[in-house]
């Protein structure tokens, strides 16, 4: 059951990440990897909420596995984030590479804290 929930969540999260990236790329002609940035920040916010809800007893272990480990885990990515940062640096865009690395971590962390704070306010 646990494995099925993780797999089901991931089968939604991974295609959502792909579609987000594709939507950004087809609409905006930009070198900066906004698609990956967006999914990583949104996924951190949602996982902060889900984890906070679980801590407060408002979300079950099954919800955590499906939405957290599966969906948010597969929606967000470290491999594409690090690869795109490397590509920016190699293409001479060193400042955008640095900004991508630092801003992704700070915005993702801020989103995780915001999600946890919302969960605390709603269910705490």
């Amino acid at each position, binding site marked *: 059951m646990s494995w099925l929930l993780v797999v089901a969540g991931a089968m939604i999260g991974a295609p959502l990440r792909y579609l987000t990236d594709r939507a950004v790329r087809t609409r905006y002609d930009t070198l900066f990897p906004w698609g990956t940035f967006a999914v990583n920040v949104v996924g951190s916010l949602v996982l902060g909420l889900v984890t906070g809800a679980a801590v407060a007893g408002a979300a079950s272990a099954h919800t955590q596995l499906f939405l957290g480990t599966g969906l948010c885990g597969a929606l967000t990515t*470290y*491999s594409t984030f690090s690869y795109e940062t490397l590509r920016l640096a190699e293409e001479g865009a060193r400042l955008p590479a640095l900004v991508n690395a630092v801003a992704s971590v700070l915005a993702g962390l801020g989103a995780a804290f915001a999600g946890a704070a919302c969960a605390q306010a709603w269910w705490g």
Partner: protein
Amino acid sequence: MSTEPGRHPALLRGQGHVLAVVAIGGALGAAARYGAALIWPVAAGGFPWTTFAVNAVGCAAIGVLMVLVTDVTPESGPAHPLLRPFLGTGVLGGFTTFSTYTVDVERLADAGHVRTGLAYLALTLLAALAAVWCATAVTRRAVARRRPCPGEVR
């Protein structure tokens, strides 16, 4: 998935196969990450070594993969168009995670383990970037050594 024009937004048109392999790859990667968390559980308040290792390994693997799929030779021809979405976007994207990383830092800070959280925050970023950089460099060198054509040497 049906792809007649007008029935789906342009975003989805012709994307059925890609979405399918991304979903399957993502499920395999996430299951592997979940399995790693079950095999190597981390104590509450401890350094999240399992997610750290998963992310570092995934970043090294994408470095190898991206060199290999973009390394087009006359003999091999281009890589299969679904290989990169399946392995890169799907398996490795589903295996590695950014949200567990940020929320683990938040949980550590919330429990008073601020130093562990900050160390984890910085070390994961450094390890991930070092892993993708080293893996890319080593794979490029290996590919160039295997095929020393003058026009292809990087």
